[in-house]
Every structure is written in C-alpha cells, then in structure tokens.
C-alpha cells in the first residue's frame, strides 16, 4: 500500500502553530528524551511524521498530545528548532474530544479555567470539587479511589493548605473581557 501525502493538513498545522513541522527529519531526539512515551500511542517524532503525511484523523484522535506533560524537553533539544510542545498544544486545541485514557484531562482544564473566570485566581478547593463532579464519581467510589482522595484532602486541610473561602481579585472585569475574546 502506498500513502499519498496530504499537504493541506500539514500546512494547516504549520499555520496554526507557527512551527515548521516539515523541517522534521525524524532524528528521534524528541522521543528519546520524552518522559511520557510509555503512555503514548505514538511517540512524538512519529506523530510529527503523521502530520507531515496528512493523517488527520489518526493525529487528532491520538492520545499523545493529551498525555504530553508539557515538559518542553523535546522543544529544547530539537536540532531543527521545532517547538514540538507548541505543536502538541495546537493539536490538543484542535482535537476537541479526548480519546479513551485522556477523558479527564480536558475536564480538568475546564474546571481550572472556570475557576479563573469566576474569581481571577484559581480557588483550589472549588476547582477540585468542580473537577470531581465532572469526572465519573461513581467509578471512583467503586474503585475506592474516592477514599484516597478524601483522605488527601483532609490531610491538606489539617495542615492549613486548604482555604475555606475564595478570594475575588480587584479588576475581575478585565478577566471577563479576556474570556470574551477567547479564540481571538
């Protein structure tokens, strides 16, 4: 079987990320230093090759950008100066739906951003509660994961690490405006 490269997807990613993915010559340095390859379906250099070939569905359905820890090791080491972590951001932003194994990641981001939108700063207790109710609470109760989490919460509370009341910043209207311009 032969694959005819579809350049339109590549160009789209390059434009949106501002990174020249076509420069990648598959040296594998990014993947060698990546700490999370064990949890990815495709290591970073393979994913970049797939972008070059225009395998859109596969790329946007991949687990790799979601479990990428944004550690910036690949970006630091790429001999062609490709900001791979930035490309991962672009792919996450485009993918909309997270595949199995990453479902909770966008839920976390949503809870985190909602907290900022509401008060200007992240209120950890409120953010954690919102996140918990977005995820499958029943599965956590069944797997007893919830006991561990509650215990950790209590340990933090006991040590004064949990603030009981949120703080709202002065100038919250600026933050509202920023969120209105999302996607700009």
């Amino acid at each position, binding site marked *: 079987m032969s694959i005819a490269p579809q350049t339109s997807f590549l160009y789209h990613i390059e434009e949106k990320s501002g990174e020249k993915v076509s420069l990648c010559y598959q040296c594998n340095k990014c993947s060698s230093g990546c*700490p*999370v390859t*064990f*949890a990815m379906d495709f290591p970073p250099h393979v994913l970049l090759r797939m972008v070059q070939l225009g395998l859109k569905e596969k790329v946007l359905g991949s687990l790799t950008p979601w*479990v990428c*820890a*944004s*550690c*910036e*090791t690949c*970006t*630091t080491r790429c001999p062609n100066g490709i*900001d791979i*972590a930035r490309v991962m*951001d672009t792919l*996450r*932003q485009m993918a909309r739906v997270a595949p199995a*194994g*990453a479902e*909770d*990641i*966008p*839920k*976390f*981001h*949503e809870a*985190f*951003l909602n*907290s*900022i939108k509401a008060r*200007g*700063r*992240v*209120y*950890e*207790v409120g953010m*954690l509660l919102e*996140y918990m109710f977005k995820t499958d609470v029943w599965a956590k109760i069944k797997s007893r994961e919830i006991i561990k989490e509650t215990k*950790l919460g209590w*340990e*933090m509370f006991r*040590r*004064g*690490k*949990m*603030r009981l009341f949120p*703080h709202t*910043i*002065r*100038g919250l209207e*600026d*933050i509202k405006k*920023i*969120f209105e*311009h*999302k*996607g*700009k």
Partner: protein
Amino acid sequence: MKVSYYPGCSLLGTAREYDESNRAVCGALGIELEELEGWNCCGATSAHSTDDYLALALPARNLVIADGKGLDLIVPCSACFLRLKASEKKLLEMPLADFPYRGSLKVKHLLNFLAEDENIQKIQERVKKPLAGLKVACYYGCLIVRPPKVTGATEPEDPKEMDRLMAALGAEVIEWSFKTECCGGSLVLARPDIATKLVERILKMAKEAGAEALVSCCPMCQSNLETCQGESSHRTPVFYFTELLGLALGLSGVKGWLKRHLIDPRQPLREKGLI
C-alpha cells in the same frame, strides 16, 4: 531593595509554607517584596492547552500591572514564571493594543534572583546555622529552565543556581542526573498513574545518588513529589529551597512551615541537630 512579587495561586493554598518562607527570607535579607496588586492566575497548562489568546492575555494583564511599577517581577512558581516569560516574549515581538507592555522590568524566578552574586553574598554573611551534613538533591524540574529561548537559562540541562545556594548554606549537595527531569505535575489529577511513575523514577535516582531529601523551587513539583509518594514508609522529604534558607538564617518561622508538609521533613534535620 524593592521588587514586585507575583505569588501565584498555589502559594495561597497548598504551597502556603513556600509563600511564608519566601517572605520571611527576603525580609531577613532586606529585600522588600511588594505583592502585585490585583494579580490574576497565569492560566498555567490549562490555558495554553485550550486557547492561544487566553495563554497570552492572562499573564499579559499581570505584566502590564508590573510595568507600571517598573520594579523587577519576582516569581516563585516555575509554571507561572514560564507563562509570564512566554507572554512577555510575544508582547515584545508583536505588541498588542489591549496590553501595552513596555518591558520596563525583568521577570525573574525567585531562585535565580536569590542566586545572583549580590544576594548569595548577603546570604553567606548571614548564615547562623550551617546545614552541615544534610545531603540534598537539588531538583529544578522543567519550567524554570525550559525552553531556554524563553526562560533565558544558560545551562538548561545542568542548572546550578540551587546547588550554589545550598552549598552557601553548608549543605552537602549531591551530584545526580535527574535535576531537570519532569515530575508529571500537570497530569497529577487526570492521569495520576503517569505522574506517579515519573516521581518514582526521580526519587529512585536521588536515593541512589545518596540524597536524604529533595529541594524544590516550584509549588507544583513539590506538591506532586509529595502526594505521589502515597503511604509508603520510606518516603523522601521535599523541602522548598527558601525553607532551608530560613533554617540556615536562623529564622523563627521554620517550624511552622515544616509542619505543613504532607511528608514530615523534620527527621533528617533532627538527626543533625538542626532543629
């Protein structure tokens, strides 16, 4: 000396002891930290994973506030530090009407700031209780050094600022190769299995190199390194670097800070008669 201070959200909650020790140490060194008025969250990984404008604008608002003061902006959290630096770089390359940032200041990570020659000298002069015999692994993590074209790190694979500080306090700084390996902090809630694996690797390397404690310069890393160790009985304590500074300078708040840790770090200090 007066500087602007951007604590970041974690320091109001889970990393309270970091904030307390930062303020106390800077106070003792005659550095006035002026908290940035009305500062907002930098957006962290959630913003840059979701939307480019949010990732640029959330830190930008803080930069503009700080710009008005003209004092260097000191940031104790590595994630906030990188987000502020990345936003600053973009604003200077491509000015945005909504955020008129002139760049009248330098954004600095607290660790790098305190490791500047002038400050290290001040610290050395004030050490009351040298941390003799305390074997520490300096853990820098990712975002204080990477990517270097944004952070300005000169030795991103082998930073030395914390090593220099700890050595100035008289601690025994061990050589190890995981100084800047990722701990998976951004995944700790949604994929704790990944974060746990990364933390285990880091701790294993630190122990093999002979460290009895880790030292951290980031609230995300510190809390992740503690929580991912679970309930095991051989847990490795993780200090904030300013806590050890406070201890060596003989500051009174130290006991209160250390009590807040999920993994009690006092044992190795007691053994050496440091507390």
